[in-house]
């Protein structure tokens, strides 16, 4: 079974400081990993994904994430936080070893990021 853990419900960062939102995963085979962002009263918006290749993935709005296979982690990062980055962030995983129904994503419980002016 595939699973995702986001260990922090809430992360507060001062504007201009670097930010990190943590995610760890568990799958049987190789993972596809995703980050989504949700603004208030909106659906989820895709940020970035890791499928294969470089462990450092760059996405929208200056975000990036690093895939670490040995630590089974995929932390979301940004060098300099903006107040507009305040939102709910979800990590998701898909297990590529599953042949049927492998389009399913398993989501974490979400991390609320607040950027303090």
């Amino acid at each position: 079974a595939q699973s995702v853990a986001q260990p922090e419900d809430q992360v507060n960062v001062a504007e201009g400081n670097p930010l990190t939102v943590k995610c760890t995963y568990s799958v049987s085979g190789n993972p596809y990993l995703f980050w989504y962002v949700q603004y208030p009263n909106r659906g989820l918006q895709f940020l970035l994904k890791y499928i294969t290749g470089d462990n450092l993935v760059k996405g929208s709005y200056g975000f990036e994430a690093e895939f670490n296979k040995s630590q089974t982690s995929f932390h979301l990062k940004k060098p300099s936080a903006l107040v507009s980055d305040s939102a709910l962030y979800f990590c998701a995983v898909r297990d590529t070893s599953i042949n049927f129904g492998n389009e399913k994503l398993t989501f974490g419980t979400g991390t609320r990021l607040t950027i303090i002016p």
Partner: protein
Amino acid sequence: DVKVTQSSRYLVKRTGEKVFLECVQDMDHENMFWYRQDPGLGLRLIYFSYDVKMKEKGDIPEGYSVSREKKERFSLILESASTNQTSMYLCASSGARGQDYEQYFGPGTRLTVT
């Protein structure tokens, strides 16, 4: 751009009513999904469909059914709504295997059952 639309942003229904939530995507995606989102629980998969008239149970299918008669449309049905089905419902779609990997989400329907 991919567009996923949901029939209502806000819905209020009474206990015992039959409720239909509609989702339409315009990118010819094969896969469609219904999730519910609750605080502290993240997104939980209710049902998904990988082809017309095909459906598979997700993690929490009890109390729900789905219908996919056309490729672009995926409906979620609450046969007899209950207060514990008050939630945000999100629809998503994704392309065929080997193509798009990410799921594209609609804006959500906030359902309140009284």
